[in-house]
């Protein structure tokens, strides 16, 4: 089996599983981790394409995705901490009034 095909399918599966987790899980922290999984899937596809075409642009993009993921977590965790201190639960149904 072609190894590019295998890696791309793995990337699609990781991204879709992360999206599924964001949609169906109710725990806020689990949803954050599923978003990390989506970023990992995208990274895998970028590395695969960079390897296939022999260019270095994909690696640069992967580096940028790393930085974005770090910044996202650094900002999301304090928000989750504040939400939990307010409502005493991680269940997303308790934050229904954030819908506006």
């Amino acid at each position, binding site marked *: 089996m*072609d*190894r*590019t*095909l295998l*890696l791309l*399918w*793995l990337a*699609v*599966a*990781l991204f*879709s*599983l*992360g*999206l*599924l*987790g964001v*949609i*169906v*899980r*109710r*725990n806020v*922290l*689990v949803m*954050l*981790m599923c978003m*990390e*999984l989506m970023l*990992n899937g995208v*990274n*895998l596809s970028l*590395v695969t394409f*960079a*390897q*296939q*075409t*022999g260019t*270095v642009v994909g*690696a*640069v993009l992967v*580096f*940028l995705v*790393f*930085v974005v*993921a*770090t*910044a996202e*977590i*650094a*900002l999301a*965790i*304090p928000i*989750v*901490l*504040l939400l*939990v*201190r307010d409502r005493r*639960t*991680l*269940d*997303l149904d308790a934050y229904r009034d954030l819908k506006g």
Partner: protein
Amino acid sequence: MIASLLNNLDTVLLVVFALCALAGAALMIVLRQPMRVAMALISTMIFLGGIYGLLGVHFIAAFQVLIYVGAVMVFMVYVIMLLEVRESTGTRYSKLLWPGVAGFVLLVGVIGISIWRGLRVSPVSTVPPAGAVQPAATGDAAFGIGPFSVAFLNDYWLHFELTSVLLVAAVVAALAVIKVARRSRHG
């Protein structure tokens, strides 16, 4: 049997790592406790790091383990242990479970089929089998930390500076979030 296995050790390891990463990702959806989900995600990330190493992009494998597992997930595990909110007896899935699963199947089907057809008709797909015999060697030549750094700091220096700006903005924003909360509690 053993000899052919050893000849294709790269491919065998790649398939094994891919299956393990997929299993970890599937466990993330199923498991209930956030700590176990975090452990499944960490194992998935480590297996992805192994895949990057097998592909020959060693510095991205190092970044994967250092930044994701070392920084992001340690942060996440720390927060899970800090909060220690017992999940109530309710279900772990929201009401969107079946629409979500249907959308998942649809998404995987559409993208998977389009990837398969795209790679089958494109002339690029004839190149990888030739390189698949010894991909690590070509990967080392094209993707060492040296060429990456030269390209990064020569051609993409603006993006490099933007990452530092983004990190500073994230730190300032996190501090602002904490400070707003403290002020609202006092006043």
